[in-house]
């Protein structure tokens, strides 16, 4: 019985990991918490909904479409909003990102309304294995999330651009002096971060349901995962996401499920009190 909660927690953690890594790396790179990641999740979910329900695409192609659309939206937001503000106090950018979140969320609400929606996917029977009920979608989500995390890690540690990205995050003036094209690196990170968040939004819509507050409902958990992992650490954010996901699911055994989204908030408070640099302990 409780193994079922653990499994569900790992799936939730897999979904959380994608925006958590994006949020954490963008925070380190751009030096402000980008709240618009919340809206990117929702944009991804609705982009896939449009392709899936509107154009009749199967969900796999709709998911790829959502990656592209969300990456593009994130890049446009960065270009129009954050780029002109790069030299300003980081908090000004954080405020602007809240404004962006409301704009995107309400464009979606204006078009689709507040109803809960679902993707058009064939109904499959859940498998039973060692007493666990495992949905086909849950396996797909977990597999793709693991693959994406591996890709991100390989990109960050093995490619020139990935290493340049980490260098820029660590020390922007030094990276610039050494010839790293800062704006290109930021542009690429934004595209990648947007794609990760958008893909996770589709997963979340598949796992639960789709409405304009989809991203807003998850964002505290995303923050908790990133802070728990240590800002700027991709493996940290992944570990943080798994822990937050598992604690949230298993926690419903002890506390009323209505408080599920409060768990992330309390994890943040505990981390700030006990180990404010997070698991990875990166200098901040």
């Amino acid at each position, binding site marked *: 019985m409780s193994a079922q909660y653990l499994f569900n927690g790992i799936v939730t953690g897999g979904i959380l990991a994608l925006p958590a890594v994006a949020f954490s790396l963008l*925070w380190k790179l751009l030096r*402000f*918490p980008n*709240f618009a990641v919340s809206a990117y999740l929702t944009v991804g979910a609705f982009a896939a909904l449009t392709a899936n329900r509107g154009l009749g695409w199967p969900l796999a192609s709709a998911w790829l479409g959502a990656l592209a659309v969300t990456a593009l939206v994130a890049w446009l937001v960065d270009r129009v*909003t954050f780029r*002109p*503000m790069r030299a*300003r*106090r*980081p*908090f*000004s950018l*954080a*405020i*602007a990102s*809240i*404004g*962006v*979140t*409301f*704009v995107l*969320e*309400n*464009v979606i*609400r*204006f078009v689709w*309304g*507040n109803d809960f929606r679902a993707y058009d996917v064939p109904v499959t029977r859940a498998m039973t294995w060692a007493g666990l009920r495992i949905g086909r979608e849950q396996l797909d989500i977990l597999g793709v999330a693991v693959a994406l995390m591996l890709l991100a890690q390989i990109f960050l540690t093995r490619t020139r651009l990935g290493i340049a990205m980490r260098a820029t995050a660590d020390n922007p003036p030094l990276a610039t002096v050494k010839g790293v094209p800062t704006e290109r690196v930021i542009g690429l990170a934004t595209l990648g971060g947007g794609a990760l968040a958008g893909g996770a939004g589709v997963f979340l819509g598949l796992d639960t349901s789709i409405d304009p507050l989809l991203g*807003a409902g998850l964002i*505290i958990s995303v*923050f908790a995962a990133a*802070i728990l992992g240590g800002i700027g650490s991709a493996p940290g954010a992944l570990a943080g996401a798994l822990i937050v996901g598992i604690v949230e699911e298993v926690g419903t055994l002890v506390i*009323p499920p*209505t*408080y599920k*989204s*409060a768990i*992330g*908030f309390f994890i*943040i*408070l505990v981390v*700030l*009190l006990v180990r*404010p*640099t997070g698991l990875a302990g990166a200098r*901040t």
Partner: protein
Amino acid sequence: MTGYLVAIATLVGIRALLALGLNVQWGFTGLVNLGVVAFFGVGAYTAGLLAVAGVALPAAWAAAIVASALAGALLATVALRLREDYLAIVTLGFGEVLRLFLLNEAWLTRGANGITGIPRPLRSWFPAHYDLFYLGLVLGCVALIYLALERLRRSPFGRALRAIREDETVATVAGKNIVRFKVQAFVIGAAVAGLAGILFGHYLAYIEPNMFVPQETLFVWLALILGGSGNNRGAILGAVVLLGLLEGSRFAKDVIPFLTGVRLAAAQQMLVGLLLVVLMIKRPEGLLPERAP
């Protein structure tokens, strides 16, 4: 029509108080509070619940202000220990968790039904023009807080806050305890938001959890940035202009046919978000820029 104007002016006054409180935090000190609505809610609920339980109003109000200030002190102390941007996240989370609490702990907060019959102060003294009296009360509070915060702005304390906002290293070298000043500034702002909540609850005589949603926080931010952060008069002016904007856009429904209730609300929030972004990029100093005291 007069009734409508009086009601609007009362709500402008309450939002002006919220903007004044946020101005101490963001305008003076550079602290990001994304949970303005939560401190507003703590004030409204504490005062409302105590008043309905029969506690004398002055005592209920004092308790409500203390509760808001305490919530601010706790959050700021935890969040500001390491780095400042955690404050933004913690306050945003607090807003969400408070709303869950208000909705689910019906034994204390009466849940989604809300609190009805919150007494209106000195109702029997003004049988005829009570709403005018209440408007006077709200505007009196705005004037009082404005004067107090103007004094604070010109005081050595206010100067220290600005120094911290501009350059923490320099302020540290000058011997200032940065974290303590920040927590104090945050608590003052939270207490002012609590006062606004008290006035809000007793004005409507009814409060429920969905009055305290994140977009209220966004509105207060827009009011402050629009009016001019760092400038107390700007905070008040911003609240006036914002309400004009929101009320004005309500009439768009009569002109544009396909604008349903949901769409109108969405369009309003879209406009507010967009305006905030454009101001942050193009005119961060607002209508009335900050002036040296």
